């Protein structure tokens, strides 16, 4: 992990005010609640929860692991809670899709010790590419209660509440954040740390763990009863702000949007009653009914899907049939993208006629007229993926279909690489290229990372062997889970506790699947990579290249720490023909052009030397000294 953890996370000064990242506050809450076991599969915006546990687990004497995927991470946490040790599992929103198969029966059975499932949604897709999934639907589908903190203080407090309620009602709890809560820093007032139980005992109990009909239906009924009891608590966890204000309009809000609403009221200089929901599944029906009865209209502010809005509309039918509900369904608020104060102000201005003293539109119009060159995220200088993409494009040609997957190599979607013709979900590259290969005569290559291979790539590859297609699979093995901040995976030989473990070799796995054509190639050896790709593309059955080379950021960090010499490269201006291949087509961020002259920025060059093999005129050389 590369993020620095706030040192105050382990402070035992009760009442002390410290600044914590939302995700750190989640961990702090778990530590105050006496957690004994934590697990995750890294995924931004939830990554720092696992990374913080990884940094402190040994010190505080609890167990933490990076599991192979979110389903496994959920299951190991279940095992702990079934055995009486409090557990927390964290994941990004898409992780819940992976874990869903075990999630559904979990609410029927329930844990013995408190169990919290922390999930981070990402409205606006700041760190997730594929969809603006709203995980709140999972709470409703699985009947797992959900708490939604709106800032770091609530992150800490709600995790503690979730543990206690989970243990009391024997049902797991979701704590759901969004990017702006997970990646917000704010002041958190600390309570004492609690030394939690780390050793438990699994008590066999067939009345609980036997989920076979008719038991399943009995457990289903018991679970629904629990939800109704928890609804009583939800009633007490909702608060009305500006409750004494006389108004025809009220606002109902949850999560980070609460902050935008409060700021909007200040900036528009109006006071309106605001009902803030915290335990958002099950919703506090009585509290909502009491609130909406007082108004002619309410504005419902929630990011993504109109979930609360629909539930409020249904409640209004009985108690306040004439109530006008402003929200997404009548386009007062957008269904797409994340919210901010501007969006809330726009809606409030439309409803109340109140305006800001400043014309945002005028400025926005001016801003939109500015031509700003795009700055897309790029593969780092010396990234082995760039070398692999370069070799693949030369060897395979542009008519080959490139299946993409999830990891740093997703950046291959951008020019000049264009080596990700589609990207869907963890491990999906293999299934999709198999399907394409079955119904077309096109050549197909799937790119998949090492962590992604362990996470969800193995079933797809087994299927390729089983059902006989012949794609080339290139495993981009950079010896780490890169994009999410350098977490270890099963191929690395180190656990989340920092202990040594077996290093599972991908080449051995794929050979065991019965694949004959398997080669481990160093991406920095461009010619060899080109040769092997060409050879394997001619094969009449599936082939696998493990493109193995450590993430350059890790290499550089290690070299710096060891005071090892880092060689730099330069362009011999006498040999350079100014063709621009190194910059326009290889696109290393350390290479730049000024007035038609190409050069290498010594501060950025990491000394990989791949550009010497890319230059058609052999004009790039190692700097002597």
């Amino acid at each position, binding site marked *: 992990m590369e993020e620095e953890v706030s040192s105050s996370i382990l402070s035992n000064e009760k009442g002390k005010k410290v600044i914590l990242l939302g995700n750190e506050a989640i961990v702090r809450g778990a530590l105050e609640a006496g957690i004994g076991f934590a697990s995750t599969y890294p995924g931004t915006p939830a990554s720092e929860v696992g990374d913080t546990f990884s940094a402190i687990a040994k010190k505080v004497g609890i167990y933490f692991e990076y599991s192979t995927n979110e389903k496994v991470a959920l299951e190991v946490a279940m095992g702990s809670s079934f055995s009486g040790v409090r557990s927390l599992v964290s994941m990004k929103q898409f992780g819940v899709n992976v874990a869903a198969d075990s999630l559904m029966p979990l609410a029927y059975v329930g844990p013995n010790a408190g169990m919290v499932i922390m999930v981070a949604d990402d409205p606006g897709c*700041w760190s997730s590419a594929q969809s603006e999934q709203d995980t709140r639907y999972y709470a409703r589908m699985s009947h797992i209660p959900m708490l939604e903190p709106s800032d770091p203080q609530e992150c800490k407090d709600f995790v503690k509440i979730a543990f206690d309620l989970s243990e009391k009602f024997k049902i797991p709890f979701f704590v759901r954040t969004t990017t702006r809560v997970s990646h917000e820093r704010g002041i958190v007032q600390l309570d004492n740390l609690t030394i939690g139980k780390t050793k438990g005992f699994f008590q066999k109990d067939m009345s609980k763990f036997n989920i076979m009909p008719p038991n399943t239906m009995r457990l289903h009924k018991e679970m629904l009863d629990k939800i109704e009891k928890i609804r009583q608590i939800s009633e007490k966890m909702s608060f009305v702000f500006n409750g004494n204000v006389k108004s025809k309009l009220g606002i109902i809000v949850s999560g980070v949007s609460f902050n935008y609403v409060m700021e909007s009221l200040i900036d528009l200089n109006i006071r309106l009653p605001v009902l803030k929901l915290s335990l958002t599944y099950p919703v506090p029906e009585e509290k909502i009914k009491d609130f909406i009865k007082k108004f002619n209209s309410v504005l419902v502010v929630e990011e993504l899907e109109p979930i609360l809005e629909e539930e409020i509309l249904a409640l209004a039918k009985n108690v306040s049939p004439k109530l006008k509900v402003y929200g997404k369904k009548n386009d007062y608020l957008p269904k797409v993208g994340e919210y901010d104060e501007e969006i809330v102000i726009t809606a409030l201005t439309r409803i109340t006629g109140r305006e800001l003293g400043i014309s945002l539109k005028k400025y926005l119009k001016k801003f939109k007229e500015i031509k700003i*060159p795009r*700055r897309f995220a790029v593969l780092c200088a010396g990234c082995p993926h760039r070398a692999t993409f370069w070799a693949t494009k030369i060897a395979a040609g542009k008519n080959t279909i490139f299946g993409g997957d999830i990891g740093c190599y997703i950046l291959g979607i951008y020019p000049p690489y264009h080596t990700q013709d589609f990207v869907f979900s963890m491990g999906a590259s293999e299934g999709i290229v198999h399907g394409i290969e079955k119904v077309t005569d096109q050549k197909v290559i799937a790119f998949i990372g090492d962590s992604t291979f362990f996470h969800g790539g193995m079933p797809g590859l087994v299927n390729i062997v089983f059902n006989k297609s012949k794609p080339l699979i290139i495993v981009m093995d950079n010896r780490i889970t890169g994009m999410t901040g350098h977490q270890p995976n099963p191929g690395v030989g180190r656990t989340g506790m920092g202990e040594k473990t077996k290093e599972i070799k991908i080449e051995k796995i794929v050979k065991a699947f019965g694949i004959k054509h398997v080669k481990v190639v160093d991406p920095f050896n461009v010619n060899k990579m080109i040769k092997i790709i060409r050879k394997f593309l001619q094969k009449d059955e599936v082939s696998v290249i493990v493109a193995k080379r450590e993430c350059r950021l890790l290499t550089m960090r290690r070299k710096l720490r060891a005071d090892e010499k880092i060689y730099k490269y330069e362009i011999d201006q006498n040999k350079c023909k100014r063709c621009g291949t190194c910059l326009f087509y290889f696109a290393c961020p350390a290479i730049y052009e000024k007035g038609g002259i190409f050069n290498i920025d010594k501060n950025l060059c990491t000394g990989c030397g791949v550009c010497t093999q890319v230059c058609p005129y052999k004009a790039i050389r190692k700097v002597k000294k």
Partner: protein
Amino acid sequence: MKEFNIVIAGVGGQGVITLMRIIAEAALNQGYDVKTSELHGLAQRGGPISCHVRFGDKIYSPLVMQGEAHIIFALEPLEALRTSYYGSKENKTIFFVNNYPIIPLSVPVTKEIYPPIIEINEILKDFSSKVISLNVSEIVRKEGGNIVLTNIFMLGYVVGNNLIPLEKEFVIEAIKETVPKKYLGSNIQIFDLGYNLKIPSR
């Protein structure tokens, strides 16, 4: 004080988040409520980064609203443009731009145009009451510092010239809390250089 809103813009690796953390800790030390917002993951790989810090008596939102920034630190001129809509004449926004361009790959690869610095500063005037444009990275390099300390110099400069309502002692304390011990000396030294450089009068 009701609120003070800061946007810090730059490119991944320029120390945007570190600067944000120091300001937040300083605000806490001085007794303010404080909220910040940052982004991780996909955006970090050489992409544009912008962080927000807000402090004051009571702060709800971690995000600065359009037009409401009091100061915008741009560690790279293009990123000043990209965040210019956080500034406005009404809120007397100050842009502090490190005049040290990092050319994005879209310029050579897809032939997009990097506007001249003079033009950038002209545009920023429409969104502010003052634009301070200095090649801070070059100053830091000339003083023998590593250019990753550009952020610290800029912080020293705004504190020294009273462009931010934070006292020096609280900021120094925050630097001590945030920066690894090994680099503390060089950070303080560069901070002081910025602190003592006065805005040229004209």
